[in-house]
């Protein structure tokens, strides 16, 4: 297991958001977390990468406990996130944004290699490397957010709603690239509202409701599961 989340509870002030989440991710997998708005998907990701402190529960990465580490230390452990809403730096260039992703790595040749790899994955970013990130289209900004997360050479990549606000054709393109990234050995945890496309990509999936995990199965079974079809895949037809 590359990632183990045990009995994770998170509160925002006095509001309890997560009521004991158990998750495990094997190395090399793509795992998706499905659920409606407010189910706690993003909160779970933010807790894993240290942006939110859990009120109780434990998180292990390669057997090492990480839930007490600050977010910047977790990046050094090779977990990075492309956050929801992308959060790129609009007033900096594409290249400067990617540079920031490599803030933790000290070896220049390694950084250069990652940059080349990212430009291979997203040729569009190379074309626009000198352009201000704020002037990119939504899809390009998403590519940049993923690229920035990859600059730190993560072993575990957390993606929060990569299809948010994208045209279907662009979303498919992004998902194809996520598979390519995974095939190089990066483990991926994917939070998505677009359940169909996420389940096609993922190996396994979890379904969350109101801060709890209500279902866990392989992606191929989930996509056929009547309850999942009813709730997330638009009823009758698959």
């Amino acid at each position, binding site marked *: 297991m590359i990632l183990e989340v045990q009995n994770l509870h998170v509160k925002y002030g006095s509001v309890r958001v997560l009521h004991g989440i158990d998750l495990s991710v094997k190395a090399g997998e793509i795992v998706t977390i499905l659920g409606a708005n407010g189910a706690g998907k993003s909160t779970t990701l933010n807790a894993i*990468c240290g*942006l939110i402190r859990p009120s109780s529960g434990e998180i292990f990465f390669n057997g090492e406990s990480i839930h007490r580490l*600050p*977010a*910047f230390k977790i*990046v*050094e452990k090779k977990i*990075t*996130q492309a*956050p929801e809403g992308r*959060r*790129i*730096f609009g*007033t*900096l*260039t594409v290249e400067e944004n990617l540079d*920031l*992703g490599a*803030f*933790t790595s000290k070896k220049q040749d390694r950084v250069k290699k990652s940059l080349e790899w990212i430009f291979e994955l997203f040729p569009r970013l190379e074309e626009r490397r*000198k*352009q*201000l990130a704020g002037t990119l289209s939504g899809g390009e900004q998403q590519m940049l957010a993923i690229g*920035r*997360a990859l600059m*730190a050479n993560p072993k575990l990549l957390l993606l929060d709603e990569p299809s948010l606000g994208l045209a279907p054709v662009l979303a498919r393109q992004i998902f194809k690239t996520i598979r390519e990234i995974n095939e190089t050995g990066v483990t991926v945890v994917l939070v998505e509202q677009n359940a169909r496309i996420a389940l096609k990509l993922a190996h396994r999936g979890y379904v969350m409701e109101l801060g709890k995990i209500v279902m866990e199965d392989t992606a191929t079974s989930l996509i056929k599961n009547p309850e999942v079809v009813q709730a997330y895949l638009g009823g009758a037809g698959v």
Partner: protein
Amino acid sequence: MIDLRMIIYAAVSVCWLVAPLFLGNYHTDVLNNIAIYALLGLSLNIILGYGGMFHMGHAAFFAIGAYATAIINTSYGIPVLWLLPLSGILAGVFALVVARPIIHLRGDYLLIVTIGMVEIVRIALVNNVFGLTGGANGIFGIASPTIFGHQINGIVNPKHYFYLLTAFLAFTITVFYLLEHSRFGRALKFLSSDSVAAEGSGIDTSGYKLAAFVIGAFWAGMVGNLYAGKITFISPESFSFWESVVMFMIVILGGAGSIPGVLLGAFLIIGLPEYFHGLQQYRLLIFGFALVAMMIFRPQGILPPKQHTYATDNASEKKVSS
């Protein structure tokens, strides 16, 4: 464009350097005040400009440097300039202790706490804390700095002091320019524009913010040393909340995060009112109007940080990469 900028900077520097040769003592002293506030503005710029932290208590660090110099110089006779690093260190340590618990506060909340801090420091000084600060009367008889046995008296001969301050100003500009373009400067730029994204990319945001606070305070403490050596008499009045506001205005009006902007801000806010003494009673009124107008028409400051220029066509792009 860049060349034009360089020419202007060079011309302004030369004018600044030769100005005392043509000015009387009074006007040279005005320049000295501009230099002091330019230094204070630059040190605040690390915190407020690069770090994006609304810190309105910078006079506290200035005061600690000045009082440290005054107390040690008058009690033990240690020469003022020798105390320059110590004044900075004491202010920096104070900043470390004070800023640590409040560094995570944002925007207006930080502003309120720092206002509280500067008031506490001033009241402590007025109340003659530990019997060291001389209460409301302050401390008299601080020695002037000496360099190679040559005394630089800021009152009798402001021109000598002018060149001491100018040398320190040049040193400061160089250091802060290098800082701005270092890994540290980049980290501050990232965290001030989106601290969550910066933290999520592996930047120790609270560590860098704290470092910015300590560096800014360290520098303000050193300026306090030079200030004490200049006027040889200090009292709590010189370190009121209003002084903090003036420093804040210099940075915001001139252009937060821009070294030339802060220098211009110091000149406008400290220098101009001195040259319009005839309008004494309307000074603050005009000032207030100018501030309001600025916030409406140019909220980023008069000389905001230079926007990068980006190659857009392929020809010039090749030039960049090769």
